[in-house]
């Protein structure tokens, strides 16, 4: 029985190439390339692996401006079968609550075309960094989210049972759930494949259908965009740059043991609590005095 997976992705600026204008403290986006959120590629690969095993379809879905089509094409080039772009001015300013609702409507629409078995998400995005859309989307769809999944251990299309392993902080769980389900993949669990030459060529030519708010039943809606977003950004500002003045420790020409002692001494003066924690001691009551270099 063939599986239909929907992978939710986001186009994000490549944060390794973002810089901050030194005077205005604003983000300099110009010329910063857009990429597929790296976490989402783990979700895409998991969906493609599922297709390897059970056959079926992988649909990639994103909400964003028209330029986000490029990110969808990228996913097609990695091997996804089809893509959908949800784009509408009405969605501008959506926070995670509103975004999850838009995605839920789009997934429900895809489900009507072809029943959806698994919805995949990345753990979080590298620009928003919230990790809230996955569980929010699951909540909207009435699914119990399987977050931080490391591996899909088994999936039986006939009984609709799925067993996954996931990491939850310092513990790991093996969970049995039922299809349809929502899985958010943990980073580093797989490496997205290179698509075939066919995939790459197809990605360039492929039609990427666009859905507007009206197309997914959200026309004139009060629950999306800025209106549907309970959070408001009040202020964006640069962190205080003088928070951490760098102290160069003069260790040139010193033996390693002396250089090490110089660092410990600097910690003892500047950060006595930390040093005490590091060496398993209580903070010396005499305060952060000079402790000597006698090793």
């Amino acid at each position: 029985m063939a599986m239909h997976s929907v992978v939710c992705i986001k186009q994000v600026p490549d944060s390794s190439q973002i810089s901050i204008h030194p005077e205005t403290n604003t983000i300099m986006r110009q010329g910063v390339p857009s990429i597929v959120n790296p976490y989402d590629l783990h979700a895409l690969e998991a969906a493609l692996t599922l297709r390897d095993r059970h056959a079926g379809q992988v649909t990639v879905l994103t909400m964003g401006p028209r330029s986000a089509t490029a990110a969808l094409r990228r996913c097609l080039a990695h091997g996804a079968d089809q893509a959908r772009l949800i784009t509408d001015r009405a969605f501008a300013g959506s926070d995670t609550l509103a975004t999850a609702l838009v995605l839920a409507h789009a997934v429900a629409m895809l489900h009507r075309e072809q029943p959806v078995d698994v919805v995949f998400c990345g753990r979080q995005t590298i620009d928003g960094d919230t990790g809230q859309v996955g569980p929010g989307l699951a909540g909207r769809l009435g699914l119990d989210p399987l977050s931080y999944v490391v591996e899909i251990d088994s999936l039986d299309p006939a009984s609709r049972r799925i067993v996954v392993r996931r990491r939850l902080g310092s513990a790991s769980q093996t969970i049995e759930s039922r299809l349809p389900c929502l899985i958010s993949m943990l980073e580093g669990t797989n490496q997205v494949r290179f698509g075939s030459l066919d995939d790459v060529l197809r990605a360039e030519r492929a039609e990427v259908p666009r859905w507007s708010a009206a197309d997914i039943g959200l026309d004139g809606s009060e629950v999306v965009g800025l209106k549907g977003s309970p959070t408001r950004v009040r202020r964006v500002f640069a962190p205080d740059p003088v928070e951490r003045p760098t102290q160069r420790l003069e260790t040139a020409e010193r033996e390693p043991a002396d250089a090490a002692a110089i660092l410990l001494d600097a910690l003892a003066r500047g950060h006595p609590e930390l040093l005490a924690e590091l060496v398993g001691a209580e903070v010396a009551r005499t305060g952060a005095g000079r402790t000597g270099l006698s090793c």
Partner: protein
Amino acid sequence: MLIRNRGPARHCAAAQASGVWVLVEQQHGEPHDVSWELLGEGRRLADTLATPLTAVVAGAAEHGLEAAAGRAVAYGADLVRILEDGVLRHYRTAAYASALAGAARAHRPAVLLLGATPLGRDLAGAVATDLETGLTADCTQLAIDPESGCLASTRPTFGGSLLCTIETRARRPQMATVRPGVMPRPEPDASRQGSVIRERVDLAEHAIVSKVLAHLPEPREDGARLVDARIVVSGGRGLGRRENLALVRGLAQVLGGEMGVSRPLVQAGWAAHGRQIGQTGHTVRPSLYIAAGISGAVQHRVGMENAEIIVAINTDPDAPIFDIATYGIVADATSLLPALSDAFSRARPDPARAGEGRRYG
């Protein structure tokens, strides 16, 4: 698939809500330290708002929730609400979200805080959706706006290069998750008094579709504890040879911390991806980050620049890592690392010389 949308009419309005709530996160009876940090912060917010501080403890009978409730009072809670049910034995999003959202719907807190741990972020996302309210992720500062009385949640954005302050004006509770290790942990006061209330949990096991087949407290996967580590020692290309990674691991062990690596080492196959710090790896915010032989490319910096104290060791005096370091040492990491391991080991208090005064060096 059905879409659950309670609509704007279903959320709780600001005028109907009061009180600050903190979730005490626990798994199998082990409370997460971020819970106590949150109670310290919650206490401050509750005092500003002149409102009580409530701790919520959720789990099953065998988790010893009374003990966690007692600690919550010692850390500043006026009231503890215990949500206890066999359905909450293991963390499952739907079960925990249903219990927590149910309690919030019944008692209408103005503020609800959770730790920005994997569990806390997952749970908060589900609860905020259920309550149709605003949630701010991974905050590093919380305050009450003096004019609006709203919770002003500040968090890093754009890979930590900027901060933004976010408010939820109209809906309640105002939810936020807070980065572990950022807020100071208060001194517990065992003499503090607080009341404990057991909440009714209306949950049926058959209504929860996911079943936990196994729970392993100690993961075998490499690097799993990096994110929560208070001390991280990382190595980069400057180590020169694969064998030298052992020097990084050695210092991490001496300090009771975790080993991290920069991306080139993962690409070279020296370390598992789970050890990678940076944009495409983990983001860490430890108390101490030691960067050994790491030049400090932006891709690495976004994963570690919010560490409290950064010690950079590099042979190149112009390496960008020195721009963000607290302490910079121009040296060859391969000779300094073993010397540091040795120095920290020797600085441990010697029980035989107790009372003689402490020596660090």
